[in-house]
């Protein structure tokens, strides 16, 4: 397939990027917060994943909460740190939606924090689905 520079530029401009559909503002929670508090935030504010303020690429997702229920964890005694997902992949605001979709499928995850020097938002599979359907 052959593209002139002008054509390629137009194609890029037409396509949706992370910055257009990501969830903002960034929603965070402390690693020492009880799981109950995290669940309250997620439920009341309709958030499917929180960035944990450890500075180490950790997030708390709905799947982590499911795991805590499966283990019979006490939501008051269990902290975010006990159940969070560590070392998550991240994306940048200029990435194409198709590329993010491919990353989520490849890694089997529903959430990718958006990083532009610092954490700026969250991309979820729900954000992608809402855009394409």
């Amino acid at each position, binding site marked *: 397939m052959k593209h002139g520079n002008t054509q390629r530029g137009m194609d890029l401009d037409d396509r949706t990027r992370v910055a257009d559909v990501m969830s903002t503002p960034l929603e965070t929670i402390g690693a020492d917060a009880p799981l*109950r508090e995290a*669940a309250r935030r997620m*439920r009341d504010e309709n958030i499917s994943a929180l960035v944990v303020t450890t500075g180490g690429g950790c997030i708390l997702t709905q799947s982590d*909460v499911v795991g805590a229920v499966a283990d019979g964890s006490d939501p008051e005694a269990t902290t975010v740190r006990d159940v969070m997902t560590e070392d998550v992949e991240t994306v940048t605001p200029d990435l194409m939606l198709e590329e993010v979709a491919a990353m989520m499928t490849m890694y089997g995850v529903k959430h990718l924090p958006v990083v532009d020097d610092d954490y700026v938002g969250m991309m979820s*599979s729900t954000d992608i689905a809402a855009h*394409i*359907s």
Partner: protein
Amino acid sequence: MNDVPVDRLMSTDLTTIERGAAAADAAEQMRESGGSSLLVLDSDGALAGLITATDFVALVRDNDPKDRTPVEAFMTTDVVTVGREDTVAELAEPTAHGYTHLPVTDGDDRPIGMVSTTDLTAYLSRRG
């Protein structure tokens, strides 16, 4: 891609559970399946409700997961279903209203598949 029928992208590997099952058992089943939803069935196999990861968040917010809360006490009964011939375009309205999992049912209200935001994401990545 909006005229693509639902049965091209739905998951058919369904995870089901009975309405009287305990919350912790349902959570374990969801974790093992690697998915984020369970179909709750009546004894005759008809769809009674849906459990999503969001429902477990609500459980942790309000109850002690260690108690024997049965699935039917916290499942979603406000379920939007679609038919296999429906198109991706027809998923737009329920998706916009926050429905992340749409069971695909046959004429007898029996589940034959599920379309989730994960399925839509996978479809977009294949198309891309």
